[in-house]
């Protein structure tokens, strides 16, 4: 039996994207990001704080970092929880040492479980970003829209009521979205979304519920990709991060402001033997000039 003729029909083939969420544009022809004091780079660090339930449904897939062994997988449960108890404090300390702020994306279940963790994040001056309910409450195509709305409402209301911040940023658990996620997140009052790693600069998405900035939260340049998935060393991670910094720095001289986006995970980068690598990276950045360190909301303001 031949393949369904559906396979030779291309209804979205035309001079546009194959969806309505954003228009195509070429980074190198776009107006540059105008950074304060004519800075070349916006250093944007993103740190997810995640709760991985011991009994994940795995629906529709297991989030990276989820349980591995048969129930009860105390090994991975506590390994991940280490990030929330110890790793994040190591990372916040080293950020403080270099006077840097991050966007810290937090599952609301973690706030209910460890409210003091959110308090410490806020006290340290970081921007709180909503990160869904938990790492098993995934957003995905085909999910019930009411359930998705409930997740978004819950995630934002828990963070907003305790943090004292407006909480305008959204990062979906496992970067996973349904077709409705950007619309629902915009409707819930968010001004930026962090799931689309398709650019080196923030850009506007349009949804039926208003426009929202797609923030270039890096997935390639992250401890998860390079150390965990690619099995590369801490030294190689440092080299790659600094090469990224240098390449963008050089490019900014010709093309204008760029975002240097680095994603660090507390249960990965917050381990004792990796902290020196993070310190080396931040020390190097500190030794350079012409960069600023805006949070997500401040980047949105620059775009508005």
């Amino acid at each position: 039996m031949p393949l369904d003729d559906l396979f030779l029909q291309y209804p979205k083939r035309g001079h546009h994207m194959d969806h309505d969420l954003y228009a195509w544009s070429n980074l190198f022809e776009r107006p540059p990001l105008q950074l304060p004091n004519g800075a070349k780079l916006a250093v944007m660090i993103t740190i997810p704080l995640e709760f991985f339930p011991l009994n994940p449904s795995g629906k529709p897939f297991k989030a990276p970092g989820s349980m591995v062994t048969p129930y009860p997988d105390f090994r991975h449960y506590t390994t991940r929880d280490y990030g929330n108890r110890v790793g994040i404090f190591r990372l916040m300390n080293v950020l403080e040492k270099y006077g840097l702020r991050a966007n810290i994306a937090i599952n609301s279940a973690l706030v209910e479980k460890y409210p003091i963790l959110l308090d410490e994040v806020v006290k340290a001056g970081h921007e709180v970003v909503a990160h869904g309910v938990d790492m098993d409450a995934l957003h995905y195509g085909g999910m019930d829209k009411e359930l998705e709305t409930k997740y978004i409402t819950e995630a934002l209301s828990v963070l907003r009521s305790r943090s004292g911040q407006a909480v305008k940023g959204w990062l979906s658990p496992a970067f996973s979205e349904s077709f409705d996620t950007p619309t629902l997140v915009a409707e819930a009052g968010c001004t930026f979304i962090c799931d689309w790693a398709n650019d080196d600069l923030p850009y506007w998405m349009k949804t039926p519920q208003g426009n929202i900035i797609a923030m270039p939260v890096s997935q390639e340049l992250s401890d998860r990709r390079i150390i965990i998935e690619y099995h590369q060393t801490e030294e190689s991670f440092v080299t790659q991060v600094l090469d990224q910094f240098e390449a963008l720095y050089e490019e900014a001289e010709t093309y204008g402001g760029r975002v240097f986006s680095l994603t660090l995970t507390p249960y990965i980068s917050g381990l004792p033997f990796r902290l020196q690598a993070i310190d080396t990276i931040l020390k190097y950045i500190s030794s350079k000039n012409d960069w600023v360190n805006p949070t997500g909301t401040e980047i949105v303001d620059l775009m508005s």
Partner: protein
Amino acid sequence: MMRDPHLYPYWPYKNRPKIRWKNGAKLAFWVAPNIEFYELDPPKNPSRTPWARPNPDVVGYAARDYGNRVGHYRMMEAMDKHDVRGSVSLSVAMCQHHPEIIKACNERNWEFFSHGIYNTRYCYGMDEAQERAVIEDSIRTVKEATGQTIAGWLAPALTHTERTFDLIAEYGIRYTCDLFQDDQPQPISVKKGQLISMPYSLEVNDVICYNSYLMSPRHYGDVLKKQFDQLYLEGEESGTVMCIPLHAFLVGHPHRIKAFEEALQYITSHPDVWVTTAREIADYYYAHYYDTFSAWTPQPA
């Protein structure tokens, strides 16, 4: 299903007729940027699901869309610096979605060959009429968008049928990048017309090196230089082909671009290298070696 496809004769890598490339070059070097479009909500082929996650797989889609918004231009700038033209492995629907990128390639006198319609439309399970439709669409689309008649083929996402090579040869396509048996071109057995395999060097493809072999950017840069060194040395005896197949959504990231650019600089700084395109290598091979090799039978020493 065939146990053995009998696509080509066995030739040991010794005592072959001597190849000398244009101007006496020992190595013909070409770069194959894959310029691809992956759909957010493609239909599911019974043999292969396009995305790891349910549609929309925002992670997979956005990672590839990075190539079209950012990567191609960064990669192109690195290639321009070293006067390297691309031979583009093209999802031909790019001609409709992003003609701006096609125009940028065309202005640089780059070659285009077909890599299917979308890289999320697989050929597995197609009947002959369907596969012909894909080939005809490819030829027509690239001709209309660029004026070029495609000379080469790389099946979308390397998905084939048993009749793929016979069909593309029948339509006048001159080379295929789908076969990895050699570092020199070789005539391929087809029912009608002529076809050669063009070394496309999957083992130094960035997607294989980065995502399958988990190499770091600088390691990948070293791999490209070492691949070149060995093929250049062997080209002394008989001319070899080196290809760097690329995906701008990988090599076009800031932390990877410099290592690639340094490899290009290294390769193009050697004297006996023909920096060219796949079409030009194929033309040269047909003009000078196709008949010789077709008539040649290896003899034990």
